């Protein structure tokens, strides 16, 4: 007897919130900011009838530190924000990374810099992948391009966070967070692993656990950094994720993530109708970046172009990945403006002619 599937029509932010409850979150600490305030609203509405806790903090600074405390005590916790609020969290993120605390963090990217606009943008790519906070650390970054992925990546995010004792960032944007699509909540077994390192109360059978990012002797600090680097090397080896669309015979490759990938998918279709052999490589993890597949695709294509809602950020990582084998261009709009597939195709054709 098959169980009826849980299929709903939901907006991205709410699907993400629902997924967190189903993933067995212990708590969510957040602060309102457009375009993701629905997360806190959904959770404060739902949580009294379900499990877990949702608390509105007094600021994003407070929220990220509540995550730090709860994660350090072994809880499954998360927070979400958008660009200006995400910036406020960077100190906390650096502390969380250094103390090696598992948690899920979400940035629903809006236009910037500064207070910016509430419209979608991909201008926080550098901040997400090169480090928004201080110090030598990396975030595992998942980039959804649909409401379904905003839900699925919550389960994946918590799992990866626990597996590697590391913060995981879901980098969404103001369109995907707001759009409504069909989403399936698959039945799944929620696995939570033991956390013997957590500060849960010193019992007689062990030494005291100290959650800290302070290592004042340089020799010890270096060891901590080496531990982090070893962990990141494991993540790079095991956790690269991407999607390839019509890359088997493509002559030119678009590289795009998130909303830009949705648009580019249509661009591929329109181009093929015109006889242009275009393919799309969609990174799903922005870090670890799918360097190897791009390096190999550079042997097959004549050029690549990134499509991004920014002034050109991921394009730098693509150029690094192909290591000079092919020319890599960029097409982008900023300030929350979303280009149509026709506009992108037009500019792709201009780029191809310029080579």
């Amino acid at each position, binding site marked *: 007897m098959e169980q009826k599937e849980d299929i709903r029509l939901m907006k991205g932010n709410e699907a993400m919130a629902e997924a967190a409850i189903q993933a067995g979150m212990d708590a969510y600490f957040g602060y309102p900011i457009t375009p993701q305030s629905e997360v806190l609203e959904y959770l404060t509405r739902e949580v009294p009838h379900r499990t877990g806790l949702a608390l509105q*903090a007094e600021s994003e600074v407070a929220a990220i530190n509540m995550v730090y*405390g*709860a*994660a350090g005590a072994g*809880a499954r916790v998360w927070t979400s924000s958008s660009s200006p609020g995400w910036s406020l969290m960077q100190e906390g993120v650096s502390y969380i990374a250094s103390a090696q605390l598992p948690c899920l963090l979400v940035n629903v990217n809006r236009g910037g810099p500064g207070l910016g606009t509430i419209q979608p943008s991909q201008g926080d790519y550098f901040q997400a992948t090169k480090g928004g906070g201080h110090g030598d650390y990396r975030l595992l970054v998942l980039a959804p391009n649909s409401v379904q992925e905003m839900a699925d990546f919550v389960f994946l995010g918590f799992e990866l966070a626990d597996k590697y004792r590391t913060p995981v960032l879901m980098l969404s944007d103001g369109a995907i967070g707001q759009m409504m699509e069909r989403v399936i909540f698959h039945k799944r077994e929620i696995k939570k692993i033991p956390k013997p390192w957590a500060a849960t109360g010193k019992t007689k059978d062990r030494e005291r656990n100290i959650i*800290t990012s302070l290592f004042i002797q340089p020799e010890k600090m270096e060891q901590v950094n080496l531990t982090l680097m070893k962990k990141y090397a494991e993540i790079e080896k095991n956790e690269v994720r991407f999607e390839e669309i019509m890359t088997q015979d493509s002559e030119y490759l678009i590289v795009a993530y998130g909303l830009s990938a949705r648009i580019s998918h249509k661009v591929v279709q329109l181009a093929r109708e015109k006889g242009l052999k275009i393919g799309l490589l969609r990174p799903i993890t922005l870090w670890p970046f799918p360097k190897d597949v791009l390096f190999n695709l550079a042997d097959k294509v004549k050029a690549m172009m990134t499509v991004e809602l920014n002034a050109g950020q991921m394009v730098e990582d693509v150029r690094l990945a192909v290591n000079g084998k092919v020319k890599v261009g960029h097409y982008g709009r900023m300030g929350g403006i979303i280009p149509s597939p026709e506009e992108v195709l037009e500019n792709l054709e201009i780029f191809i002619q310029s080579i």
Partner: protein
Amino acid sequence: MENFEIINPQCIVDGEDTYELVYEKTTIMTDTRLHYCPGCGHSTAHKILAEVIQELGIQEDVLGVAPVGCSVFAYDYVNIDWQEAAHGRATAAATGIKRCFPDKYVFTYQGDGDLAAIGTAETIHCINRGENIMIIFINNGVYGMTSGQMAPTSLEGMKTTTSPYGRDVHKMGYPIKVSELIAPLPGAFYVTRQAVHTAAAVRKTKKAIMNGFKYQKLGKGTSFIEIVSNCPSNWKMTPLQSNDYIENEMIKFYPLGDIKVPSKEDLVNL
């Protein structure tokens, strides 16, 4: 005393002489040598905290949040599970812990910069929410760890490295009486100001910290324990002079005593 025999813990036998054990170091303090300056109140405050944890028997259920400041290494001295918070954020971290693990005893231990400068928002909102934790606030009117800058609680006229001619309240703001500031918040259940520079003061502080743990079981709000303390090094005084400064100057401005106490009805289930 060599070659002595302990017949019972209270009675130490040395030859024909017996001695009653009246004091021993609490088992909750580690043997790590304290880094605090001679005469610093932190040493005494840590010891009181550790003694209370031992006497209440809650070592396995207590979680501390350490600040940024001289006491950043509190976790080296008190043998419980600790978390080190970012500067000013201890009360936010403690909120996260207590909300997820409400049966644990949770406390923060913070200095005047941590709690009343960079952490002001987190302090006020934690108390405003009535988080069932204890906040231990060590107020010594100066920034110790960073070598003596002015603090929000530095007294008017106090010379520090960033108020070299003395604190001018018209330019630099006034010293803040934090206990009085937060006491009116309904979420503040128990607010008291104590000290550790005399034996009598130590006994009262110990009672206050004991309450700060016990009251958590009532779930009725935050216990806020301000401890007026010293910093001989950055006050540029000897330890004894610094104790006089506490007695003659600090306590004049920061009077000791209970600012807000729970009613008898509130304590019925204790």
